[in-house]
């Protein structure tokens, strides 16, 4: 078992709303391998707070959390080395600008491994390996991370976490701010990393098209509660997402519009444009 939440709540005092409970009574499990999970929810639903618990950056205010056998409670336990947890669960933040600081890509990626007392030679090898894993070639090693494009920076920041060789990889909105093509390329990359390494991957996203096309498990947060954990298609069939400030995938929306406006009966649960096209072409009654 990788991560288990046991009735975890987290509250804090904020300037804006006084005492604020970001997540409430959350319980679920994530296996230490072979998982590919999407975490969705509107802004302020608590998904980022949830993610920060996964590598013990913040502690629950009530409930407990088990991460690779270590129990995290509201109090800092001196016997637990929290740094070891962060090595096992890698968290990539939304903006690469938050973590890039060295003058070369290679040095920057080495920062993580070196913090875990890995020798310089080994760290160099890891840097190269993880850079290739995110689809950048060796020529990037000597480049300045600040002169890269937005998408490349993102890849380097992900490589920085991959180099620590975590068992579970958590990514906070890795596709935001990219154009659709860039988004798809990055998602293919994550899927590829997952397939190659069998690491569990958790991705926070707003994009329901991606959720439908890439994931087989989705966690949905709403106002601090975990309101769904399961297959995306089941989510789209059963839940009223508009009520939760969420959206449906475009294929579902378009096919549903056709059904309603033309009084036909297409199966609207199609993941891709190709599948939707086949459904329309194959429809008997038009």
């Amino acid at each position: 078992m990788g991560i288990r939440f046991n009735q975890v709540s987290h509250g804090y005092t904020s300037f804006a709303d006084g005492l604020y409970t970001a997540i409430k009574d959350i319980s679920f499990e994530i296996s230490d391998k072979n998982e590919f999970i999407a975490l969705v929810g509107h802004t302020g639903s608590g998904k980022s707070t949830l993610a920060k618990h996964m590598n013990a950056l913040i502690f629950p205010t009530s409930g407990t959390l088990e991460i690779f056998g270590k129990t995290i409670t509201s109090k800092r336990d001196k016997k637990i080395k929290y740094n070891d947890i962060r090595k096992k669960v890698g968290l990539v933040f939304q903006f690469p600008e938050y973590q890039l600081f060295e003058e070369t890509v290679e040095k920057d990626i080495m920062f993580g491994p070196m913090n875990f007392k890995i020798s310089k030679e080994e760290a160099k090898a890891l840097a190269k390996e993880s850079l290739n894993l995110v689809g950048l070639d060796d020529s990037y090693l000597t480049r300045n991370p600040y002169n890269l494009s937005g998408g490349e920076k993102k890849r380097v920041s992900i490589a920085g976490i991959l180099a620590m060789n975590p068992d579970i990889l958590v990514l906070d909105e890795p596709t935001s701010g990219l154009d659709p093509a860039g988004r798809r390329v990055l998602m293919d990359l994550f899927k590829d990393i997952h397939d190659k390494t069998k690491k569990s991957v958790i991705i926070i996203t707003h994009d329901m098209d991606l959720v439908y096309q890439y994931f087989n498990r989705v966690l949905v947060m709403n106002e601090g509660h975990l309101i769904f954990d399961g297959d995306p298609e089941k989510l789209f069939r059963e839940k009223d997402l508009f009520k939760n400030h969420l959206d449906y995938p475009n294929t579902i929306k378009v096919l549903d519009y056709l059904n309603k406006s033309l009084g036909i009966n297409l199966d609207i649960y199609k993941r891709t444009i190709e599948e939707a096209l086949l459904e329309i072409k194959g429809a008997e009654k038009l």
Partner: protein
Amino acid sequence: MKSVIIGQYIPGKGLFYKLDPRTKIIAVFLLMVSVFLFERIEQLLIALGVATLLLLVGKINIIRVIKGLKPIMILLIFTFIFQIMLNKQGQKVVEHDMYFTLFTLLFLVIAFILWRVMVKITKFRFTFFFLFVISIYLTLRYVDYGQTIIQPFNFAIYEDGITMSIFVVIRLLIIITLSTVLTLTTKPTDLTQGLEKLMHPLKKIGFDSESFALIISISLRYIPTIFDEANKIMMAQASRGADFSEGKLKDKLRQVISLLVPMFIIAFIRSEELANAMESRNFVPGEPRTRIHELTMSYRDTLATLFSFSVLILSIVLKVI
């Protein structure tokens, strides 16, 4: 969204909230000067009484002000002790020998441990610090058996030492209370605007008070944002194993750099974007602008200024006589 509260300003009603910031700045300045002019302890005590009365008139929570004093309590105590120890004028009030022996050392260590433990488990930190200081004194005074480490030395308190130390402490108390009233009842933006207007005449010697005020208000506006961001950067680097609580000095240095570089680079990008946003909204440095915040004086301001002026004159008169 975690944020820090800017300054000490607490929204409220009452006399001091209605005063113009300029009046408040001038009044606090005049009153502080008068406090330094008072020479007799009775005068100061009356001044302290008046300061407390001002808090009551302004409906300011006195407990709040006392809480504000907490961080500088240690400073006050040290001032007090130094004054007592160093002033050797007037009549001797107390005089006796002090001893420093092995037993004293033992007692001191025990007192220290007791103090640290008590501070950890109870709330009354300050009371225990006070008890700790007293126990040091008592130990030095009465524990005279055992192997001497330092030769007995003479300890004396003089009359003037006591009056002077009380004097200094009360003076500090008044000054702190006055400035707390100012920051507690004035929004940071109003404070900067008040300062801007008061410093306007300095334009003649080349000081641009408007730009100064704008710089301050933009800094104030970005404090919560930057704080938030620093927090996120710290978490991002902690996720890469930068554990800021452990590690050797050399590692720590690198970890601090890993925090500072992103902060500066983001700040650099931000300043450029902010400058663009300001320019696109027709901001031209040095050009005349109208202001949404207008400072207005009322009869209250006249009264407050008159009051502080008369206190100043009174203090000058008392000094001359």
